[in-house]
């Protein structure tokens, strides 16, 4: 549905500074009907990418195709103006026009857009869109008299009323308070999914990206670091950046000593400061190279009996040096040979600071990624 090839955007050097590479050859494909998240810290290029898809920003190079129509191609000098790309977009500020009523705001794409609809149909479709976002009673209200959450829903109604080919969402939840954000997250996903509109969604909040998206693209420094389903990115991060940006992790530097073939899969032996760790997750790191071992704090299971060892699991023992009880979970710090590891335990696991404990970490919960340059 949306194909982006080798997209580049460079802002010219200004006032003796270096040119800024906002996008460095980004490639990605979004399937019809998918909910696709662009996740990354501020300055990673995700907004530039969304603006380029919308045509509000002109990339320096690359291609963008929406459906079967090329909307941007730097080689052939193709640039389709924003207004002809048949998009819907929810802006970060919502951009609700304050001089119009809610109805007029939502009707705008039908009245002034590419395919102008007759008056009666406009009324019908606007009211339908407003009902979808549960704002039908507010149609004649002036936009400034709405709360933040209502404005967000008006913006959403305006973005879907003309059934766009592609819906773009620019941090749509970041201006809402925490409680409202939780409910809107589900409402937004359900609404978009029920309409079947392909959606690209920019966020810096990993919870939003994980909770809403079918596919997540993690951006870092103008490049896509990893694309995948939320589970894939969480359990199989391909870089230390992805691992640390999506969820928390323990990162242990070390070296791959050998790669063995065991039971139909590769087993990597990885030497670290806390001893050898085995990983059964596919990795780009070859034997003899430096790398980082990623272990999620939730990967640790306490082993009550100090003698028993589990099949296919690393055994890690150490002193529990700190512990904080958070109610839903217990966060603790395990010190192994002077290296602190962060672990998250079940609230009902009783642990005491200063006690020695042993944990087992299954091989498939340890991920070896390349060392950072």
């Amino acid at each position: 549905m949306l194909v982006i090839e080798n997209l580049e955007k460079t802002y010219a050097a200004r006032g003796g500074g270096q040119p800024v590479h906002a996008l460095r050859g980004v490639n990605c494909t979004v399937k019809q009907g998918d909910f696709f998240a662009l996740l990354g810290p501020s300055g990673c290029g995700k907004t530039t990418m969304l603006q380029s898809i919308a045509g509000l920003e002109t990339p320096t190079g690359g291609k963008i195709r929406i459906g079967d129509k090329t909307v941007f191609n730097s080689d052939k000098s193709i640039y389709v103006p924003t207004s002809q790309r048949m998009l819907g977009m929810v802006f970060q500020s919502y951009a609700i026009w304050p001089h119009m009523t809610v109805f007029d705001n939502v009707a705008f794409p039908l009245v002034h857009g590419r395919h102008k609809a007759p008056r009666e149909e406009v009324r019908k479709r606007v009211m339908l869109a407003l009902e979808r976002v549960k704002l039908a009673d507010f149609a004649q209200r002036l936009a400034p008299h709405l709360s933040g959450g209502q404005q967000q829903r008006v913006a959403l109604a305006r973005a879907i009323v003309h059934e766009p080919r592609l819906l773009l969402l620019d941090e749509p939840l970041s201006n809402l308070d925490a409680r409202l954000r939780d409910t809107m997250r589900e409402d937004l996903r359900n609404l978009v999914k029920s309409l079947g509109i392909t959606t690209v969604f920019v966020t810096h909040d990993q919870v939003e990206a994980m909770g809403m998206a079918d596919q997540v693209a993690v951006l870092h420094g103008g490049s896509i670091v990893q694309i995948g389903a939320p589970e894939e990115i969480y359990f199989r991060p391909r870089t230390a950046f992805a691992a640390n940006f999506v969820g928390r992790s323990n990162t242990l530097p070390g070296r791959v000593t050998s790669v063995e073939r065991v039971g139909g899969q590769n087993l990597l032996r990885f030497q670290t400061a806390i001893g050898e760790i085995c990983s059964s997750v596919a990795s780009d790191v070859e034997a003899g190279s430096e790398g980082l071992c990623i272990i999620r704090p939730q990967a640790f299971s306490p082993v009550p009996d100090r003698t028993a060892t589990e099949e296919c699991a690393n055994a890690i023992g150490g002193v529990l040096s700190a512990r904080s009880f958070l109610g839903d979970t217990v966060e603790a710090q395990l010190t192994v040979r002077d290296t602190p590891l962060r672990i998250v335990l079940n609230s009902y696991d009783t642990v005491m600071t200063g006690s020695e404990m042993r944990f087992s970490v299954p091989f498939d919960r340890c991920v070896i990624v390349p060392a950072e340059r």
Partner: protein
Amino acid sequence: MPRRRASDAGQPWIAQTVVLLIVAALVIGPLLMLFRTALLPENSLPFETWEFTLSNFATIVTDPQVLVLLFNTAVYALGSVVFGLVIATVLAWLVERTDMPGRTAIRVALFTWMAVPPVILGFGWILLINPGSGILNALWRTLAGTDGPLTIYSMWALIFITGISVTPTAFVMIGGLFRNMDPQLENAGYVHGGNWLSVARRITLPLLTPGLLSVGIYVFIAVVQTFELPLIVGLTARIPVLSTRIYLLSSPDVGVPNYGLSAAFGLLLLVVAVLLMLLYFRVVGAGEKYRVVSGKSFRPRQTELGRWSIPAMIGTALLVLLMILPLLVLLWTSFLRFYELPSLDALSRVSLDTYREVLARGAVQGAILNTVILVFVSSTATMCLAAVVAWFSQRGRGWIARSLDVLSFSPIAIPPIVMAMAILLLYLRTPLYGSVAILILGHMTIYLAFATRTLSSALVQLHKELADAAMVSGASWWTTLTRVIIPLIWPQALNGWIWVLAHSARDLTIPLLLMTNSNMVMSTVMWTLWDVPDLPGAAALSTLLVAALLCIVVPLQILITRKSERAM
């Protein structure tokens, strides 16, 4: 699929180019003509010869009179600025920062002052204090028995009148400075042990200084460029300044016009104005350091005047009286058939005969029609052009947007008298010369800078996403501009429209330099009647013009104020 420049995302480059060409033709065309003419040999016209000579500049450099001109101009401008700024600062402080009664009335009065043409002020003051029959001098004679000491034809009178006429502009700008100052900065001074005097001296004044300086330079530029008051008052007083010199050379009372020398003087004035403008930008840039404008809203600290409120009110009332006095004199004069001093005897001869007689003249009727066409067309056309220019230069990227920005702003450094002169030279041989259209072109050129600035600053405050949202919804740039942007900034747009309208109506510079029998407007007819002299006739027309402008400006100002207050 059309090929497009990648830098013009979302905006049609054809429309941008057309707008750029229009602005360039308006601004650059006349200037090129001015340069060419300044290099002409004596007694020739542009397009007649290919000869280039520096003789005009040689004349300027060797002429000892030029130093006198520059000195006069400097003394005149400096005097007016100091006088106007002191009054404006005191007034602004009283209105914005104290509890003096009647503050709103004064603010509204000063805002509407732009409806009063400086020409008319000049007429009024001549009637008030001319050495022979000025009303104030006559009053002095009756009371003291000796001849009155006041004379209109002197440098100090010129400075006084100009100072008063620039006060409203300075007041509006300085009022903004006072309003935008965070009172917490001063409160912090009091909390940490400062008294009233030390806070004023160490905190308030230093914070205001960059702002006051930039207002001062701005007004200075305006006075250097001004033409009407030096023409009406200064010529008789034999105080030539640069602007009147340019006029006299191109429209002498006797002999042939010396366009070459006039253009050379025009370039000299242009250079002076551009240098001052650069200085202004430096100071404004430095002022950024002291920016005390913060996003949060606050009520500035109000000083309680206490027993000082009566003297403050009396002082303010006197000032307002001084400003209105010339208008009252003109009103009085317009009711008489022949000018005489106010007296009970004269009161019996008061009638509307002058109005009847003046309005019956075909020339006057034509002038009124021309004026209506001129002011409405030039204000509307200027605002339309400015809206598109501001939109493209704000939202566009690339060199077209930047050139539009610079080109549309540059006329602010071009003195109207120089622009009028340049337009005259450019269109002298075309059918446009002698039509109202040429006056419209002139006013569009000189007011474009103000109109574009007004709309640009309004656009800057609009969130960019409001326009993006329209384009994503499928609207073209034109629909976006007319359906979303203009409805959102209409109070500022209307404000700019009134400003251009009022200035177009009161301007004498452009109509006088481009005057022929067929494109007379009210200001030029007034000036001709005054020259005859038909004082009551000129007074009657002045009164009509001021009354008509007030009828347009005051209700619209009130409407805009109400609207923008409700929006807040």
